[in-house]
C-alpha cells in the first residue's frame, strides 16, 4: 500500500542519519590516530570520513508511477552514495618524542576537527529526531485510517 511507503521514506532517513553518527563517532575516536593506513612503506594518519547522500528518486516504482500517470513520481527517501575521505591537509604538531615524528621532530595528525564533528553530530541527531517525528505521524495516520468503518 502507498501509505507504507512514507514509513519506508522515514526509515531510509533514519538509517542514513545513524550512519552519519557512526562515521562521526569513528572520526572522533580517531582524532589522534597517527597510524590510519599503511601506504608506500610508511604510516599515514587517519583521514576524516564523510557520508555522501543523495535523494532516492530513480526507483522502478517511481518510474512506473510516472508512466502510469498515477501520482507524479514521488521521491522515496534518501540513500547513502558513498563514504568519502576528506582531502584536507593533515594537522602538523611539533613533538620530537612521538614515535611517528619525522627527522625534524614534526608529527602529522589526522585532519579531524573535533569542533566540526560536534556540529555535524548535533545536525545528524536533530535530523534523526525530526524523522522520528515524521515516522510517528505516519503511524498515527495509519492507525486513524484503521478506525474507519468501526
Amino acid at each position, binding site marked *: 500500500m*502507498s*501509505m507504507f*511507503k*512514507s514509513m519506508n*521514506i*522515514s526509515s*531510509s*532517513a533514519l538509517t*542514513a*542519519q545513524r550512519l*552519519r553518527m557512526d562515521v562521526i563517532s569513528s572520526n572522533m575516536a580517531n582524532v589522534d590516530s597517527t597510524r590510519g593506513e599503511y601506504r608506500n612503506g610508511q604510516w599515514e594518519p587517519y583521514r576524516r570520513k564523510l557520508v555522501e*547522500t*543523495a*535523494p532516492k528518486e530513480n526507483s522502478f516504482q517511481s518510474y512506473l508511477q510516472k508512466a502510469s*500517470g498515477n*501520482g*507524479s*513520481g*514521488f*521521491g*522515496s*527517501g*534518501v540513500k547513502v552514495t558513498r563514504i568519502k575521505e576528506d582531502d584536507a591537509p593533515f594537522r602538523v604538531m611539533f613533538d620530537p618524542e612521538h614515535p611517528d615524528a619525522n627527522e625534524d621532530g614534526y608529527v602529522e595528525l589526522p585532519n579531524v576537527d573535533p569542533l566540526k564533528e560536534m556540529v555535524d553530530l548535533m*545536525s*545528524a541527531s536533530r*535530523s534523526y529526531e*525530526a*524523522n522520528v*517525528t*515524521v515516522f510517528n*505521524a*505516519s503511524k*498515527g*495516520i495509519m492507525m*486513524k*485510517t484503521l*478506525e*474507519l*468503518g*468501526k
Partner: protein
Amino acid sequence: MKIFSTSIQALEKGIQYSGAKHKAISHNIANVDTPNFKRKEIKPNFGETYQRALEANKTDDRHREFSGSSNKAFKMDNTSYSYSHNGNNVDIDKEMSDLAENQIYYYTLIDQMSGKFQSLQNVIKGGRG
C-alpha cells in the same frame, strides 16, 4: 435514487491528496541534509472540480465540452530556489508545521468519512441501533 452522496468521493479525493502530501513532506524531511536537494510540493488540482461545476450547456451537437485537464486530485510542484549554502532548499520548520497541519487535516477527513458511514449505518438499521 442516490443512496451514497458524492461527498464520500470528494472525501476520498481529499484523503488521497493528504496521503500524497504526507509522502512528499516525508521525502523532504528525509533529505534535509542532502546537498542540492530541491523540495517537492503537492498542490490540490481543481481541474476536476471545475469541470464538474462548469458543465457546458450544449444547445448544438457541435458544441465542445469545456476541456478538463486531468482527474487527479493533486499535482506535483518542484520549487528551485536555494535556502541553504549547500543548494538544499528544505526549511525544516516549515516542513514540520506542514506535517502537523496535514496530519490534522487527514484526521478531520477520516472523522468526516466515519460520520458518513455512521449515518448510512443508522439509515440501514432504521434508526434502531
